[in-house]
Each structure stands twice: as C-alpha cells, then as structure tokens.
C-alpha cells in the first residue's frame, strides 16, 4: 500500500478494520475487496486525466470489470473457496491489465501498469494467506463508527483519505475525520 500511494482507501467497517490489522487474517477476503478499491483509486491518482497512458475507454472498462468481479459477491467459508475466489479476482486483474495496456501493449511499461501489477500482487498475497474461520465475504459485521480508530490509523499510516461506507459514511484524512 505504501508503494501504491492511494489517494482514497474505501471500504466498509470490516474491510477497514482488516486493512488496519485490527481484525486478523480471517478478514483477508474483505481486505482483498478493499485493496481492489484502493488500487483503482491509486490508478486514478497516478493518471493525468488529459494525458494518460490509460485511455478513457480503457479506464472505464477497468472500472466496469471491477464492478462485475463475481468473487466479491460470494461469501467464502473455507480456505479453498477463498483461494478460488481470489484466483478469480486475479484473473480479472489480468483482463484489466490487458485493457489498461490496450494498443500500447508493446510500449514500455507505464507507471499505471505498474500500479495494476502491484495491485495484482496484493491479490495473490491475499490468496496465499492462510485464511479460515468466520470469513463473511464483503458484508460488514461492524458499524462505520466501530472502524473509526482503524480508519484514522490507516489515514495516518498511508497519508491518504479513508472512507468508511455504510449506513453512515465516514470520510477523513490524516488525523481528522468528518
């Protein structure tokens, strides 16, 4: 995450708790979802909207693929299922990489492509982690306010904006929250 330098990290309360290391490895699936969100936002940050290696169409395609990633909609109850889903996500990231490179596939690797590759590595790490127990996909079992401390920690650690989505949304940067 330090390398990605995300502008915004968005997750529900459970995902933010997981990213902050407050909920243990059992929440790796939720962390993976938040990592994807963070990675896309990092890609946006690194892209000049008017002069970018990612054509607007490709960026739209990238977001479309992210929204359609089926692994995010299925709860994982065991390690094998989790790894299968993470593999599916990784496969989508391969497609996203292809879309991002587009007609410039033969050109030197851009910073944006590097960002996406780092993101895929995050997914691989999640897949390889020994996850078990009460994994509940991307459904949050905590309220946004329960993740306030974790969100502040993330904002301080990565010097980014952290958004906790839920029935009530929290948005903050560094040590401040709004």
């Amino acid at each position, binding site marked *: 995450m330090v390398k990605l330098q995300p*502008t*915004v990290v*968005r*997750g*529900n309360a459970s*995902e933010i708790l997981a990213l902050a290391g407050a909920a243990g490895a059992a929440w790796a699936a939720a962390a993976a*979802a938040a990592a*994807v*969100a963070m990675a*896309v*936002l990092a890609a*946006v*940050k690194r*892209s000049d*909207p008017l002069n970018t290696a990612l054509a607007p169409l490709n960026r739209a395609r990238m*977001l479309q693929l*992210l*929204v359609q*990633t089926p692994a*995010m*909609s299925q709860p994982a109850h065991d390690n094998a299922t989790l790894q299968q889903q993470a593999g599916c996500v990784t496969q989508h990231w391969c497609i996203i990489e292809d879309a991002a490179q587009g007609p410039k596939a033969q050109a030197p690797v851009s910073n944006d492509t590097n960002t996406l590759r780092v993101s895929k590595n995050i997914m691989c790490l999640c897949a390889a982690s020994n996850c078990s127990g009460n994994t509940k996909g*991307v*459904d*949050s079992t905590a309220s946004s306010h329960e993740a306030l401390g974790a969100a502040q920690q993330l904002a301080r650690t990565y010097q980014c*904006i952290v*958004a906790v*989505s*839920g*029935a*009530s*949304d*929290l*948005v903050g*940067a560094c040590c401040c929250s*709004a």
Partner: protein
Amino acid sequence: VDNGVQMLTKVTAAGCSVTALIAAFVAAAPEQPLEATAAALAVFG
C-alpha cells in the same frame, strides 16, 4: 455523511459501485480529493 440507507449495506456490489463513483469524483476534482470523496458518498447515499 449520514444520509445512507441501511438496506444498501445488504446489496451486492454496492461497495464496488460507490468506489467507482468516488474514483470518478476524485478524477474530476483531483485537487480536492477529500471534498470529492465526501460528495460522492453523499450522492450515493
């Protein structure tokens, strides 16, 4: 941002959708990412 709907937390892909919306808002206003993020969440509910 306290204009959310509890039911939306049960809807599949709502989180991904709001992430995409945040990305769009931040891309449109890269100099004001905090305000853009808050605006996106306010719009999404």
